[in-house]
C-alpha cells in the first residue's frame, strides 16, 4: 500500500501535493481527465490550507482492494476552522474576496468528498475510485 505525506507550509507545497496526486492517479491507471481532476481538487484544498490556516498536512494513499482501485486523499489543518460549513460549500461563497469555488468544485471533481470543521481543526477527505477490469 502506497502512501505519501507532505507538510503544507508554502505555495511550493501546493505544487508538490498536486503532483503527488497526479502521479499516484497515473500509476494506478486513472486516465488523464481523472488525473487532472484529482490534481485540481488537491490544489484547491491545499491552497485553502495556506490561505486560511497558514499550514497543514496532505496525505495520499492507495487503498485499493480486490474489487476496486481506490485513492484516498486527506487534507488537514489546525487553523481557525470554518464558521459556516453549509455556506462555505456554496458556489461563490468566500470570506476572502476570491472566487469561492474551491470547496464546491473539489467536491464535484472527485467521487467522494467529506469535510469536517470546528474551531482549531479542519479535515477534508476525498476519494477517487475505479473498478478493476
Amino acid at each position, binding site marked *: 500500500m502506497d502512501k505519501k505525506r507532505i507538510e503544507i507550509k508554502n505555495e511550493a507545497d501546493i505544487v508538490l501535493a498536486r503532483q503527488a496526486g497526479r502521479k499516484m492517479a497515473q500509476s494506478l491507471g486513472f486516465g488523464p*481527465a481523472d488525473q487532472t481532476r484529482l490534481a*485540481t481538487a488537491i490544489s484547491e484544498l491545499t491552497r485553502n490550507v495556506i490561505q486560511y490556516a497558514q499550514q497543514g498536512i496532505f496525505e495520499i494513499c492507495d487503498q485499493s482492494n480486490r474489487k476496486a482501485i481506490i485513492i484516498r486523499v486527506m487534507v488537514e489543518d489546525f487553523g481557525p476552522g470554518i464558521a459556516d460549513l453549509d455556506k462555505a460549500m456554496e458556489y461563490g461563497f468566500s470570506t476572502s474576496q476570491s472566487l469561492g469555488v474551491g470547496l464546491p*468544485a473539489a467536491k464535484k471533481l472527485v467521487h467522494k468528498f467529506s469535510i469536517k470543521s470546528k474551531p482549531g481543526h479542519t479535515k477534508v477527505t476525498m476519494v477517487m475510485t475505479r473498478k478493476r477490469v
Partner: protein
Amino acid sequence: MKIPILQLKNLLLTSIQVELTDRDAIDFQYDVVHKVAETGAEGLVIDITAMDVVDSFIARALNETARMARLVGAEVVICGMQPTVALTLVEMGRELIDVESALNLDHGFEKAQRLISAKKRMPG
C-alpha cells in the same frame, strides 16, 4: 520566476511555462500591463500549453490579467489550454475563465487580430 513577454508586430506573446505562485501571478500582471502600455500593443496572446492544472486561483489570476491588459488597450486571447484542463474547468462550474480562448498559438494570433479589427470598426 520572470515570464518573458515577446513582441511580434502589434501583438505581445507570452507563454506560461512554470507553476505560478501568488507572487509570480502578481509580478506577471504588473509586467504585462506595463509592457502593453510601453509598446502600445493592440493585442496580447497568452499561451498556457504547459499548464496541467488551472485551479480557481489561477483562473482568477488569468481573468484579472486580461482585464487589466484590456484597460490599457489590448485585446486578450488565451491559447493552448489542454483538453483535460478545459474539461475540469467546465466541471468546476460556470464560466471560470472569462477570457477569449483559442486552440493553439496560430489560432490565437488570428483571433487576436480579428478582435483588434472588430474593435477598430466599432464607432466611438
